[in-house]
């Protein structure tokens, strides 16, 4: 389960960033910001490598003593960064991959939403709005919630 999920646009500004627990948010924001350098490094390394296969999943970006940071970049150069608690050793690589895949699917759904302008922050409107169907952005939010750890 993730403690922080961030979606970062091509121009390196955050489109969506959410962390649990909510009190030490700045620490996670800073961690995501520093991980962007590692992401850029990995992307340029991939470009120079002569390997034919270029994966979207970047793997473990860097481990700290409390947390591990994973990265994923889409074809549209939108980056997903996930911070996971180090104490949760049961989390395997393919579980992280599947979490990123779910995130990518939800992000694609948000892109296809006609009310979403590419480049805007991903936030759902107030529940007071008279919407018949569940907004795609709220679905994105709830998908991310399901991925996050329950810290009481």
């Amino acid at each position, binding site marked *: 389960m993730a403690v922080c999920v961030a979606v970062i646009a091509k121009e390196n500004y955050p489109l969506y960033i959410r962390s649990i627990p909510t009190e030490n948010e700045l620490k996670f924001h800073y961690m995501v910001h520093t991980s962007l350098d590692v992401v850029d490094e990995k992307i340029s390394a991939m470009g120079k490598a002569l390997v034919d296969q*270029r994966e979207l999943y970047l793997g473990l970006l860097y481990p700290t003593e409390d947390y591990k940071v994973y990265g994923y970049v889409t074809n549209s150069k939108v980056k997903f960064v996930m911070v996971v608690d180090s104490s949760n050793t049961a989390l395997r690589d393919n579980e992280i991959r599947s979490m990123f895949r779910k995130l990518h699917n939800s992000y694609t759904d948000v*892109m296809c939403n006609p009310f979403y302008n590419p480049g805007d922050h991903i936030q759902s409107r107030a529940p007071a709005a008279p919407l018949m169907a569940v907004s795609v952005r709220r679905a994105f939010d709830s998908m991310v919630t399901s991925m996050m750890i329950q810290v009481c």
Partner: protein
Amino acid sequence: MADPALFEFLHTEMVAELWAHHSDPGPGVSAGPRGEEARAAAGKKMSLCVLEGMGFRVGQALGERLPQETLAFREELDILKFLCKDLWVAVFQKQMDSLRTNHQGTYVLQDNSFPLLIRMASGLQYLEEAPKFLAFTCGLLRGALCILGIKSLVTASVASLPTCKFQVVIQKT
């Protein structure tokens, strides 16, 4: 994309609807005898812009959704090949017939039987009407390229229906 005819009908209606209003483009255009032609020309341009804009937004969404399972693109040519193969198949159920480049940022994509024109005529009939049926597709290409990281300018030309060429010029910044 269950039935290709659905999109073709929708597209035809879109063009017809936008074109129906081109005689009143709005304020800001000069009045008077020359004003009539100027108004008509400005209206046509507006409609083309609107169609291209619609295609642009659809292209952005498609450019995000279609390459989802594929691996990262290595270079520009890969992206153009993706447009000719995957994007064209997804929207028009066929691949682009030819892709040419001058290796200096200009690509010409040729479709010998463009599905949106094939129902109209074969040959030189309706040649003047063809451009408005290509505006949406130009925007589609530009939107998909934009979301994949390439700023470009896309224009279309028709020599004889239903063959059409899309010229993509990469804007270097």
